[in-house]
């Protein structure tokens, strides 16, 4: 039974495969996280007409290393009346799920740590564990701002989980399987063309879930100082920081696997295609983060429930109809139809939908 799980062309027993991929994931994830940190700071800097870090190492490449060393040496303050154990445990609970997501991401043909046949379900389950960690951090810091930040995080993740999962189901319908390998193999036409509305909903929902770009309310520095990680410093704070970039990379990897055709690509070697696509999606996140102001918490909620959720249902319904009623229609025609549907639905829906401007009568 053990060998059955072994991908055909990998030498050595299961444990050799496991060991190689654990090392790959740790090196890939931590390395690319550092790279992502540097890339974001440089890209944002150039887009803001300034230089960004360029003092430590060539082009500032060692800046993340310098930050890491600085943070490790920083004093680790624990709030006096805070809950010590929960305060210590929170960063672990936030960062561990992020690393576990990469276990299922296919870097190349067979190159996957565990080719689970319920790959995408595993990812959705694991990514909601991180929210518990954030709330633990908010509560344990015994600080009003942290509590506000944690409450916002929980509220937004709970309400964005539904549109994200519904848009994933749309993709799974087309691919016919939950396993990430199969989804990539089924993408002769990248699903972003077949599922444009699904891609839009997933991307917006994912941005809100990892609190990046327009939805970074959890540590909105202009409002509630630094949200749930106000009372953290030193290595615990850097764990949260790495957790955030890890989640951004995980979401980019999932988007590439689900919508952009993973490692499939004409000329370049497959693993390079995967990295290029992840880099592209990450760059769009950085690009949006540089330009767009922050959304208010009730608008965030209103967007989830009144805009994304109904559209996700409609999208699921339309995809199901397409698969059942017109299986024979060629995929390229479907691409045109789906894009038209997306445009019509988005315009129609935003006409009805008013972002919450409510002034609460006190």
């Amino acid at each position: 039974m053990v060998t059955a799980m072994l991908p055909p062309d990998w030498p050595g027993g299961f444990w050799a495969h496991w060991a190689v991929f654990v090392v790959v994931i740790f090196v890939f994830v931590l390395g690319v996280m550092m790279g992502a940190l540097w890339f974001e700071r440089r890209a944002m800097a150039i887009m803001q007409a300034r230089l960004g870090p360029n003092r430590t190492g060539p082009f500032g490449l060692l800046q993340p290393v310098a930050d890491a060393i600085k943070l490790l040496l920083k004093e680790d303050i624990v709030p006096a009346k805070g809950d010590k154990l929960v305060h210590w445990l929170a960063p672990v609970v936030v960062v561990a799920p992020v690393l576990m997501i990469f276990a299922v991401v296919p870097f190349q043909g067979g190159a996957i740590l565990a080719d689970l046949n319920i790959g995408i379900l595993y990812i959705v389950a694991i990514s909601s564990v991180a929210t518990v960690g954030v709330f633990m951090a908010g509560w344990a810091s015994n600080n009003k701002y942290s509590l506000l930040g944690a409450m916002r995080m929980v509220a937004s993740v709970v309400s964005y989980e539904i549109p994200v999962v519904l848009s994933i189901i749309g993709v799974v319908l087309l691919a016919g399987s939950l396993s990430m390998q199969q989804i990539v193999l089924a993408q002769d036409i990248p699903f972003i063309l077949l599922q444009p509305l699904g891609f839009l909903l997933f991307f917006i929902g994912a941005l809100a879930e990892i609190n990046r770009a327009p939805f970074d309310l959890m540590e909105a520095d202009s409002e509630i100082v630094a949200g749930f990680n106000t009372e953290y410093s030193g290595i615990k704070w850097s764990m949260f920081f790495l957790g955030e970039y890890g989640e951004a990379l995980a979401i980019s990897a999932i988007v590439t696997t689900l919508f952009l055709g993973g490692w499939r690509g004409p000329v370049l070697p497959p693993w390079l295609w995967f990295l290029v696509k992840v880099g592209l999606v990450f760059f769009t996140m950085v690009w949006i983060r540089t330009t767009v102001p922050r959304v208010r918490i009730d608008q965030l909620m209103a967007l989830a429930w009144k805009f994304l959720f109904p559209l996700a249902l409609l999208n699921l319904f339309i995809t199901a109809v397409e698969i059942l009623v017109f299986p024979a229609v060629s995929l390229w025609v479907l691409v045109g139809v789906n894009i038209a549907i997306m445009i019509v639905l988005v315009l129609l829906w935003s006409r009805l939908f008013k972002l919450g401007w409510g002034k609460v009568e006190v």
Partner: protein
Amino acid sequence: MVIKTEPFVVNIGPAHPSTHGVFRMRTTLDGEVVVDMEPVFGYLHRGIEKLAEERTYTGCIPLTDRLDYLASMSNNFAYVLAVEKLAGIAVPERAEYIRVIMAELQRIASHLIAVGTFLNDCGAFQTPVVYMIREREKILDLFEMACGQRLTYNYMRVGGVSQDVPEEFAPALGKFLKEMPGWINEYDQLLKDNEILLARAKGVGILSKELAINIAASGPVLRASGVKWDIRRADPYSIYDRFNFDIPTGNAGDCYDRYRVRVEEMRQSLRILKQALKDLPQGEARSEVPQRLHPPVGEVYGHIEAPRGDLGFYLVSDGSIAPYRFHVRAPTLINLTALRDMVVGWKVADLIIIFGSIDICMAEVDR
């Protein structure tokens, strides 16, 4: 079943990323909604009005730099106008034009900071503020060329300006005037119809027209509520009656209108600067004034349209070389009077934006 919630008090400030200086708001929050808010001032009080009572009239000019440090050229202008009115000193033509050029450049520089930090409070991650500070840098270069400093200029003197502008000032200003409208259009392209900014700022923190007049608000805050009142047009001082420019006003009096009024005012200032640069006369930059000025006994109130509002200087002279009483009408302190009414009922995120859109400078509030 009514869930028992219990409001808790949060101190936003004095050291908070977006209180624009040391300003504290004792806010009572019910969850996210602001129930009550009490502003606390005084963290930056240096007693400028007491200091001024033992300095000569020229020695007070560096004091006025420190009032609203983001618009110290306008502070100098207001103080010097008041003293000239008190002592009856005439100012040569060229000095008048240089003063108007400096005041309008200062208005653009101050509005750039105001709009930039307002966007920062909305959460646009430092991008608009960095673009606008880049343009402000060009204006600071011009100021440095004329008076040697980039923040506390101490450039204007009773009877004119301390030194005439160098020859390369006019061509540099001409180049700036050609280039700046393009940059302002780029800001508009980045921000004007941004859906998230519209959602965040439109209809938020409304200051009604009657309340604005009742609390004697002034400057962009008053004009955004639809009151067409600008000292340059209502009570023209210096040579402002020679330039034609119009007064942008909003209608709803919300944060978005205050942002739009400031951007339009930048465009109007550019118009004034073009006209002023075109007919900048030659001649003396400063009239003969004794260093130890003895203005006659009496009192005077001179006010100008500073970037943040109606900045007035009330001077009482008892014939000696130092002012007997030196009072500053701080537009930012008075604009804050209605902060509590504008903020109660909104959420924490809106409190920060509404406060940011009023654009205060704590040095002028606390004096």
